[in-house]
């Protein structure tokens, strides 16, 4: 199914042709083969004729075939929906998705997730020498494998990770992509991205795997003298230099931007501000002192005494 087309999320199982109690529409919790109970009782009827048994067998076999078809349809639809969902997610956060791919591979046991019954899981069924059995068994196993390949906990990908961004000025000759933030990091990868000529480095907190925080560092595409560090997650431990103002303690806000892109201009403005502040302070001190009559008198006396001393010598 083409994911780009508007997705039809109904299963479209052709249940009309199916003569059992399968639900016409999903969702339904109970899906039962209608014959389970009926056949059981028929086994117990000793005097059941062979022709009747054959008839019953044919009926159950055809039902079996239809269930398999339905299962294949559901699997196809599930797969299509799954791809569609992944596509949507990757559109939302392509970078995060890319990084998390290796961890997705370490998924939980898919059989566990699906909760397949043990008998099916181990592929063991009753013994039979007929070719039909082997064919069925093979089909069943194949379908199970097909199902397993598309499984993973769908809810996992919806866990939100706190992301914060920090801009740090750096020497353009320095290629180490190191951002000192008080934590120790282990580099685990580097790649070149389409949108930026500088490579992007990936770091994990040195306390990994117990600490889930990851860091990406890349030079800004606009200004290569700026390093852009993106933090994902929150440290679950204290940093070695916690007092040094580590960047990830500010994780609460979604983005922390230290705007140093126009650094020179900004610094000049800061200097001007400081100069103006100092002038104002000096003026305030001067005015408060001149308003103080005691201070004026003391100052006058000191000056006069000095003058007198000078005239004596």
């Amino acid at each position: 199914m083409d994911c780009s087309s508007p997705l039809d999320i109904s299963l479209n199982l052709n249940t009309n042709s199916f003569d059992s109690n399968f639900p016409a529409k999903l969702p339904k919790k109970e899906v039962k083969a209608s014959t389970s109970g009926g056949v059981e009782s028929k086994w117990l009827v000793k005097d059941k004729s062979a022709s009747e048994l054959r008839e019953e067998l044919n009926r159950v076999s055809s039902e079996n075939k239809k269930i398999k078809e339905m299962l294949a349809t559901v699997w196809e639809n599930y797969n299509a929906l799954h791809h569609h969902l992944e596509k949507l997610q990757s559109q939302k956060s392509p970078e995060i998705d890319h990084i998390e791919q290796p961890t997705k591979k370490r998924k939980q046991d898919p059989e566990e997730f699906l909760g397949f019954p043990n008998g099916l899981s181990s592929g063991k069924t009753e013994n039979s020498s007929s070719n039909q059995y082997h064919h069925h068994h093979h089909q069943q196993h194949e379908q199970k494998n097909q199902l397993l390949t598309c499984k993973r906990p769908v809810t996992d990908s919806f866990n939100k990770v706190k992301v914060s961004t920090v801009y740090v000025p750096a020497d353009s000759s320095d290629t180490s992509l190191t951002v000192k933030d008080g934590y120790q990091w282990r580099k685990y990868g580097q790649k070149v991205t389409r949108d930026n000529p500088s490579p992007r480095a990936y770091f994990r907190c040195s306390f990994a795997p117990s600490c889930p925080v990851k860091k990406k560092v890349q030079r800004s595409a606009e200004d290569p003298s700026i390093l852009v560090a993106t933090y994902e997650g929150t440290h679950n431990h204290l940093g070695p230099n916690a007092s040094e103002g580590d960047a990830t303690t500010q994780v609460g806000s979604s983005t922390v931007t230290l705007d140093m892109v126009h650094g020179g201009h900004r610094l000049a403005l800061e200097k001007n501000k400081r100069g103006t502040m100092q002038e104002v302070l000096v003026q305030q001190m001067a005015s408060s002192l001149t308003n103080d009559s005691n201070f004026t008198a003391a100052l006058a006396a000191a000056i006069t005494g000095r003058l007198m001393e000078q005239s004596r010598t």
Partner: protein
Amino acid sequence: STTTALVDELKRVNAENKKLSEMLTLMCDNYNVLRKQLM
């Protein structure tokens, strides 16, 4: 003996049917989880 073989085969197919039905139920559940995520 033919009847016994038929009964055995019937048992086997029936058990397979049951397991396939369970798989289908699980598949439907998973499908619905995905569908809810999309809605």
